[in-house]
């Protein structure tokens, strides 16, 4: 049957791809169970007088376009205003963010709003550093973090706080994020679908199967005691959210997923901005993968090992095997090499495609109004366009990561351009 090295290579790539598809199928099923549970029971309400004091941190760097609306949305959150402190860290901005923020603060003298303006000496060293500055000046027993482009729904914070009060083992509780500008163009429509899909598979699915979810960088609350133990955010990390999630799990806490809390954020509207943002995420994942690789076999790491394994499977196994199988396919097609087991490859591809489309549809079916005919059409397209872009990003992200590690680039704000 297996006649030469290419056959063995093909078989290996088949197993890797099949394994990834299997994992994604399990995650989709986990997401389904979580969805059923979510629809069945209602978390208990906590009366207003028992709610803890919360500090909301908003790190911002040149965010004049969006920061005003964000701060207004936070002020309008449904939460006892005596128990809510809002800290905006306007970090080394060169635009008029400071004036906009000051104006809003003066319009709401009855609220606890603190605005910290820094320059290139006192700050300007990235989001982690800005969060640490805000953390030092905050006094809440819980900290909530919102990115500068977010519009949380009115009940978003309260739901997170309910969930963390109820769950003593939760170091942090995360909510959902959705795409606010989804109707702008095809790219934002893709990102919207991707976001819903990610929420279903990665957050709800992982939470259901392994009690595991990771902080998405915005719309989450974290205990002050946990942050104290961690010593704040890691200023060397590229994706500080992923990094801190891993450390929370190593402390023995878990991160709970709370789908009742939703925040709407602005997504990139042009491809170059998208590429830059995603390249950073991929680099961050490599950073976490390398930093934590030794923990893959350490029991103390807990469920995070699944994530490490998953990253490894996606970024190493999947990437290498799809490249290998494509190469062998083309070389075999051109008559350069001989293989004896080619018949299955179309079927494997077809299965992966249909399962991808159905997994996206299952996620869309849970959000009101998202399972429309136009979104189904976009999903059918997505596999050939948006997903291919991801493969491209994975490759350039890898080279950029290697480049950065070799030349020790300094960490600064990786800013996503706003619209």
């Amino acid at each position, binding site marked *: *049957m297996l006649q030469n090295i290419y056959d063995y290579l093909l*078989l290996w790539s088949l197993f890797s791809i099949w394994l990834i598809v299997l994992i994604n*199928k399990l995650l989709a099923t986990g997401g389904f169970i979580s969805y059923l549970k979510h629809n069945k029971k209602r978390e208990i309400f906590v009366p207003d007088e028992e709610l803890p004091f919360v500090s909301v941190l908003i790190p911002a760097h040149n965010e004049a376009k969006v920061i005003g609306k964000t701060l207004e949305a936070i002020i309008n959150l449904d939460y006892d205003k005596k128990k809510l402190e809002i800290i905006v860290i306007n970090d080394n901005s060169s635009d008029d963010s400071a004036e906009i923020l000051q104006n809003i603060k003066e319009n709401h003298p009855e609220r606890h709003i603190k605005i910290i303006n820094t320059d290139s000496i006192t700050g300007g060293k990235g989001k982690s550093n800005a969060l640490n500055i805000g953390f030092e000046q905050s006094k809440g027993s819980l900290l909530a973090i919102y990115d500068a482009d977010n519009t949380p729904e009115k009940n978003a914070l309260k739901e997170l706080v309910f969930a963390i009060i109820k769950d003593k083992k939760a170091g942090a509780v995360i909510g959902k994020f959705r795409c606010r500008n989804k109707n702008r163009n095809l790219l934002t429509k893709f990102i919207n679908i991707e976001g819903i899909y990610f929420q279903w598979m990665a957050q709800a699915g992982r939470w259901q199967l392994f009690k595991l979810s990771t902080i998405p960088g915005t719309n989450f609350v974290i205990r002050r005691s946990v942050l104290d133990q961690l010593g704040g955010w890691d200023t060397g990390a590229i994706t500080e959210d992923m990094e801190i999630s891993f450390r929370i799990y190593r402390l023995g806490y878990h991160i709970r997923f709370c789908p009742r809390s939703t925040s709407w954020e602005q997504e990139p509207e042009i491809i170059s901005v998208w590429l830059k943002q995603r390249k950073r995420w991929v680099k961050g994942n490599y950073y976490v993968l390398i930093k934590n690789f030794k923990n893959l076999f350490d029991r103390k790491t807990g469920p995070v090992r699944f994530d490490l394994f998953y990253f490894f499977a996606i970024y190493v196994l999947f990437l290498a095997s799809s490249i290998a199988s494509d190469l062998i396919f083309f070389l075999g097609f051109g008559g350069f090499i001989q293989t004896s*087991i080619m018949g299955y490859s179309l079927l494997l591809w*077809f*299965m992966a495609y*249909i*399962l991808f489309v159905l997994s996206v549809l299952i996620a869309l079916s849970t959000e009101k109004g998202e399972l429309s005919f136009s979104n189904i059409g976009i999903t059918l397209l997505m596999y050939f366009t948006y997903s291919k872009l991801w493969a491209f990003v994975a490759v350039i992200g890898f080279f950029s990561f290697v480049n950065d590690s070799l030349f020790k680039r300094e960490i600064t704000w990786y800013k996503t351009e706003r619209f």
Partner: protein
Amino acid sequence: MSRMDTKISKRIDLIHILLTAMFFSLIIAYSLMGLNEDAMNIFLVFIVMVGSIVGYYTTITAGILYSIIYIFSYASFHIFLNISRGIPVSVDVYFWMITVPLFTLAFAYYGGLIRNIQEQNSNLKKENAELVVIDKETGLLSSQTFFNELQAYMKINERYHIEVYLMLVKIKYENEVIKILGESKYNRIVNEISNAINSLLREEDRKYILRDANMFGLILLSNKDGGRYIKNRIKEMINNINFKDDIAINKIKLEVLVGLVPYRSNEISSPYEFFKMAEKDLEFDV
């Protein structure tokens, strides 16, 4: 019909035609591709049917999950056969991978639409029932406004010091009466009693039929001991009702229980309490 409703019924019409066409295509494909030669295909038709039922009776989400599990297992099985036994992957494998999710999704969509109009229908019925103030059969007031008006009369008493009575009237041994005579004759009795009550009381007294509790509720304005007089008159009248043409009803001795409580603002704080006291008074009417 509103625009929303026509939109839904149009969609139901469309999906119905689509489903018929899909079954037609399935049959044509079955014979064209020669699928009847392999017994495995019968089994796959069965999977399509189960998918349709799962889709129709649950949600679109569950239907998709069903398709995902099926496609993964089916395709993995054929990949295994291809590699280990060298069995080539034929076109019908792809055919079944598309057919199952298509049928499941179409039926799930259909079921969703049907559920949607069922829900609308039951909501409308409920809203409609809440709007009915006058009981169709007896012409008495229905229970919807009973507690609201009771509260209003309690307020009148506090302000003008007019005696307010709540009287409840119930047929004695009503379960047995229903068992012996049946629902329709029981309803006749109820109608006769309401006629009697209507003729006896004045226009300004409020007369309710509380169908959920199988009772008549009467709110009376009267001076002292007026209530007791009415109580006796009602019992007497009902004892004397003559169901001329119906011997079966005449044979059983029809009696009613009457509970009567005057409103005392220092003892009763809510209309519900008032009602409960009158209900308790029924127990003393033996």
